[in-house]
């Protein structure tokens, strides 16, 4: 080896050392920025979108029981939000301010962090929203932000998975809340203030009985078809700025109805003015069903008698628009009122209040009336009293309830479920009691 070779070797060694010692492992990252940078960017983007709409956002939420609620949100840039909601008349009329914040909870999240109209749906106290105790309507107020487009934001609740959709509102949308248009629409629930049990609407020359459940937001139409048979259609409904929207359109046979336009509520006469496909009509009280269920009273009596069961009602009689009209709940330890068909076999039934015993761990029957039910050919049950068990009070809520039961004109029966009936006064349908079977 000569010097030249040494030199060549050293050069090769040095060149390779450039590769060996200066090489370094590079990580391949899917994103240019770190997760923290990206979440901050995302939060900033959502915040500027939310606060950027001058007329606010239209929100639609669908709870687990299927009911749809509408909201109007106006977010400002100091963590405050103003809200309207079609939850009830008050929330549709008065805007309420509360707070919100955007937070990184693994994903970008929007939190409504103090009580607002949105929380009415989530409140675990069922007395607030008609849901279940401990759960409410199983709705959310903490949402992960799923996607953002120019005029809409999609969100998913972090606990119950409630879907919330925000769509950029126009000034007209905002005005519809401010000028009470939504409040008028919510007047639909005033149907339940009509004093008669039966509520009727005439659509295209045909009469329909209307029944609504404002908690689950369902409406039921009952009518008599050409063959004289009773027909029924039930759908969920939601509200819009103009009226009620049927989730499943109602095909009457001659036309398809997508909803009702609500015009006004006439409190004096108990009449709701509406428009159906542009034609003005009304929903008002009726004192008799469109078609009397002739066999209902006997079915009602026999169902309990043959199974050894009895009928109970927690609320007692509803009379002239007042629930528990005789104030049974003011009687100490009152639990429910019972109607027990065939209590004394072949002879008489039992009508009595049932009380919680002194120890608080059982029920007791202190006294009762011994009525008998007779069934008329026109589908009524008439009750006559044959005597008493124990000392029946001569006045007060319990006696008034008995007097109501013994109404000489009797009652129509409406089956509301597999084991529930409503018993409706045949005089004017302004008194009724809802009964459930216990066996």
């Amino acid at each position: 080896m000569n010097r030249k070779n040494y030199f060549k070797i050293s050069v090769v060694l040095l060149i390779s050392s450039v590769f060996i010692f200066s090489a370094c492992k590079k990580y391949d990252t899917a994103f240019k920025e770190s997760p923290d940078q990206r979440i901050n960017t995302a939060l900033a983007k959502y915040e500027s979108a939310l606060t950027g709409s001058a007329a606010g956002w239209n929100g639609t939420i669908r709870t687990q029981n299927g009911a749809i609620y509408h909201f109007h949100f106006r977010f400002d840039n100091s963590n405050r939000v103003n809200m309207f909601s079609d939850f009830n008349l008050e929330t549709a009329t008065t805007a309420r301010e509360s707070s919100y914040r955007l937070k990184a909870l693994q994903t970008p999240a929007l939190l409504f962090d103090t009580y607002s109209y949105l929380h009415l749906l989530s409140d675990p106290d069922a007395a607030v929203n008609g849901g279940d105790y401990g759960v409410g309507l199983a709705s959310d107020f903490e949402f992960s932000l799923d996607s953002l487009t120019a005029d809409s934001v999609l969100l998913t609740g972090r606990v119950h998975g409630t879907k919330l959709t925000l769509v950029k509102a126009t000034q007209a949308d905002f005005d519809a809340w401010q000028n009470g248009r939504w409040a008028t629409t919510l007047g639909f629930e005033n149907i339940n203030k009509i004093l008669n049990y039966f509520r009727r609407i005439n659509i295209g020359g045909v009469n329909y009985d209307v029944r609504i459940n404002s908690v689950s937001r369902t409406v039921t139409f009952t009518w008599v078809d050409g063959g004289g048979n009773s027909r029924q259609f039930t759908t969920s409904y939601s509200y819009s700025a103009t009226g009620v929207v049927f989730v499943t359109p109602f095909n009457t046979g001659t036309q398809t109805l997508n909803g009702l336009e609500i015009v006004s509520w006439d409190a004096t006469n108990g009449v709701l003015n509406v428009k159906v496909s542009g034609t003005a009509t009304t929903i008002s009280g009726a004192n008799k069903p469109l078609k009397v269920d002739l066999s209902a009273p006997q079915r009602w009596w026999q169902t309990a008698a043959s199974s050894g069961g009895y009928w109970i009602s927690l609320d007692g009689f509803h009379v002239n628009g007042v629930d528990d009209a005789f104030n049974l709940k003011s009687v100490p330890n009152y639990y429910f009122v019972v109607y027990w068909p065939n209590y004394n076999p072949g002879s008489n039934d039992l009508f009595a209040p049932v009380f919680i015993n002194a120890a608080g761990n059982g029920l007791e029957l202190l006294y009762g009336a011994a009525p008998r039910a007779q069934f008329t050919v026109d589908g009524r049950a008439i009750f006559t009293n044959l005597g008493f068990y124990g000392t029946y009070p001569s006045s007060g809520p319990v006696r008034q309830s008995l007097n109501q039961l013994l109404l000489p004109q009797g009652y129509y029966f409406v089956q509301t479920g597999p084991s529930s009936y409503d018993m409706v006064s045949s005089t004017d349908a302004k008194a009724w009691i809802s009964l459930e079977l216990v066996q």
Partner: protein
Amino acid sequence: MRSKFLLVLLLGSVVFFSCRKEDPLVVDDISGLGGDTWTPTAIDKWLHDTLVIPYNIATKYKWDQSELDLNKNIVPPKEEKVIPVMRSVKRVWMEPYILQGGELFFKRYSPKLFVLAGSANWNMDGSITLGTAEGGRKIVLYLLNDFKNKTMAGYVPADSAVLKQMFHVIHHEFSHILDQTIRRPVEFDNVTKGFYTADWINTNDYAARQDGYVTAYALSSPGEDFAEMISIMLIEGKSGFDAIVNSITGSSVRGTTAAEAKAKLRQKESIVVNYFKQAWNIDFYTLQLRVRNAIVNEIY
């Protein structure tokens, strides 16, 4: 010459091409690090001025699921309830202790975090929890949305149940802190020794009293018994506690006579009174009077 120059160049390139190391002290702006922030409102200012500055007590009224049971449906409080509740807490719990024990005592031992919830904490069995506490540091108050004292519109006497329960929780937890700082006398544990049970949930208050316990929960352990004695005596006041003792009649299912049960409750009372004097130099009956008067001012 050229070859030497080449060598130097190659050596230099080794240095030049080596990797850049990132400075480990440069970190990203981590979202939420150091706690959530928002634009402060009048409520935040009031809480800061009234509770944080003088006593270093934080109040969390904005929703933070991590502070509450993850498997429960709970909602945040209405904003308009926050200040009235904390004002009442200050009057019924803080001020009496500060007046009797001194500011230094209170600052040193008070729990440092209040978490507020709007609804109750609903349990599987349909019952509700109105307050919980953790480790002498954090107290959770529920059902703020139903909070009403006599100054608020629509107050009815029945609303006082929510208030008293709230004050009960706070006094109960603070009693634990005192107990854990200076241990309660051993003779307290011996007064009703042998009856403590994890099955207290199946007992009601009256049955517990027949055995010489002030509430059913007091049956769970001597430590809870001690905290229940202190908190019930404080919130019910002297005459209220006397009424509880005097209400005991008959014998318990375990055979304790009414006279024995009364004597045991009285014995526990005197141990508590002595403990406050010796451990904390606090006159218990004056403290009791102050707390009860504050509660009476809230509800009547």
